[in-house]
């Protein structure tokens, strides 16, 4: 079966009385790299956080690999999932944050090994080998024993990517992964992400890096004010935007 990896149907989300997602319809195919762009406050990060249930949606349907996020469906009725079931669902979904959120009291390799050992109960030596391989892959094979405070922002974010990958997810979510980085460090993180895309990982990337979106993205979504304004092939959306809001946004960032 090759259904969509992520499917959102009329997803709504309120924070108090403000509606931040106003009916999102999206589909992400396996191995697809989807980039989501849009002004701040457009709801793109919130939508991303809904996909792994860091935020709960208020209405609509959201599923990952054919499974509803956060709910079980039984005879046409929805049952809220227990924390444990939500955790099991999250095993398949890796997430990379804007602020890296590495665990500062653990070394780089401990950061990477923590979840596979604790959450999946995997064998320590197996995980250690995989973690080291991932560190090599993100170009930090020598820095496994360094604490996050001893690494540059770009290095920290690469460790964070390796940490998410060590859970062997089917889907990777990137929440503005380069926005907190000094300009000269952005490239090294994008390189790792580009390589990951080439390896066939399904990725959803909330970003301001239009160059990355054009080169690496299979699809581009422009969100504004809680709705998907425009979606399509990156080149087409970027070169020939159809909506005035897209045009206005692109004229500011390009």
């Amino acid at each position, binding site marked *: 079966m090759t259904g969509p990896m992520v499917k959102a149907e009329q997803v709504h989300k309120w924070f108090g009385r403000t509606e931040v997602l106003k009916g999102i319809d999206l589909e992400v195919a396996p191995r697809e790299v989807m980039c989501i762009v849009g002004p701040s406050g457009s709801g793109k990060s919130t939508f991303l956080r809904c996909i792994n249930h860091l935020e709960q949606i208020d209405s609509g349907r959201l599923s990952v690999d054919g499974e509803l996020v956060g709910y079980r469906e039984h005879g046409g009725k929805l049952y809220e999932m227990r924390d444990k079931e939500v955790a099991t669902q999250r*095993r398949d979904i890796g997430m990379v944050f804007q602020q890296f959120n590495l665990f500062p009291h653990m070394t780089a390799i401990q950061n990477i090994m923590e979840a596979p050992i604790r959450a999946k109960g995997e064998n320590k030596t197996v995980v250690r080998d995989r973690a080291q391989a991932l560190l090599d892959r993100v170009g930090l094979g020598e820095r496994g024993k360094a604490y996050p405070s001893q690494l540059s922002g770009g290095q920290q974010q690469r460790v964070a990517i390796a940490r*998410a990958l060590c859970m062997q997810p089917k889907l990777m979510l990137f929440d503005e992964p380069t926005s907190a980085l000094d300009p000269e460090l952005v490239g090294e993180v994008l390189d790792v992400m580009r390589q990951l895309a080439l390896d066939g990982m399904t990725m959803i990337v909330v970003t301001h890096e239009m160059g990355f979106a054009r080169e690496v993205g299979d699809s581009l979504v422009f969100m504004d004010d809680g709705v998907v304004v425009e979606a399509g092939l990156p080149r087409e959306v970027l070169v020939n935007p159809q909506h005035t809001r897209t045009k206005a946004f692109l004229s500011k960032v390009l």
Partner: protein
Amino acid sequence: MSIDTAPQAGTSARPDPIKAVPVRHPGRWVAVGVIAVLVAMFVNSLFTNPNWDWGFQLSNAFSAPVLRGVWVTIWLTIAAMVMGVLLGIVLSIMRLSPNPVLSSAAWLYIWVFRGTPVLVQLVIWAQLGSLYRNISLGVPFGPAWFSFETRNLIPNVGAALLGLGLNEAAYMSEIIRAGILSVDEGQSEAASALSLSRMQTLRRIVLPQAMRVVVPPTGNETISMLKTTSLVAYVPYYELFFQTQAIGSRTFQVFPMLITASLWYLAMTSVLMVGQYYIERYYARGSVRTLPLTPIQRLRVRLTKAELR
């Protein structure tokens, strides 16, 4: 136009330092003089005033009853702190729980135990028998399976432990709660996104980071606890203060024994302060790039430098 900022080879000698007359501080010298005179007067009195009775102090400071008192003080401190920290962790997690019943129960506990003097609590535990003569285990409001006389169930040492430990738990829970709240929310989010459970997140990610905020005040609490154990003399139970007072009143040498007790407390709190330094250093790892040297390491560096000279 060419700007050349890189120092050229061979010409990188340091420029001459500024030569200037430093600011004088006459006030400091006056203060030093005054303090020196006061210290000299006090030290002189130590030797000339016979009421200090150093010989008597020395002959009693290491006597068996005093040493037993020291031992009781030490283990009471440790036991009460362990109880306080463990119960404090539970209370702080209850306080932060989304369940309103749990969080208000913790709030109520903290309100009562922080709001009453620990001396009063200690005496209440010791006198609990006059409130509830018997304590029974059985069906609530129904028949009892076991029944104990309160006096036997809570001996004086038990009252001392309960009084100190339960009171400490209230303070520790607030310290731990502040520590937990000080950890960035992104940490728990990252842990959840990595599929770690709530308890794993708390134990492996949040609490270790909270420790940096929790350890310094806990050290203070431990030092404070060591001194607070002296209140146990009124339970009564034979800790250090009780023992020195007993000797003092038996021999009519009350004052020298107060000094003996003070010196013992001072010695023990000094040891704790050193311990606290190293524990704080341990939990600082990962948050500072290079740990500062310990005093012993600094001494070693200085000695090796001296050797090289």
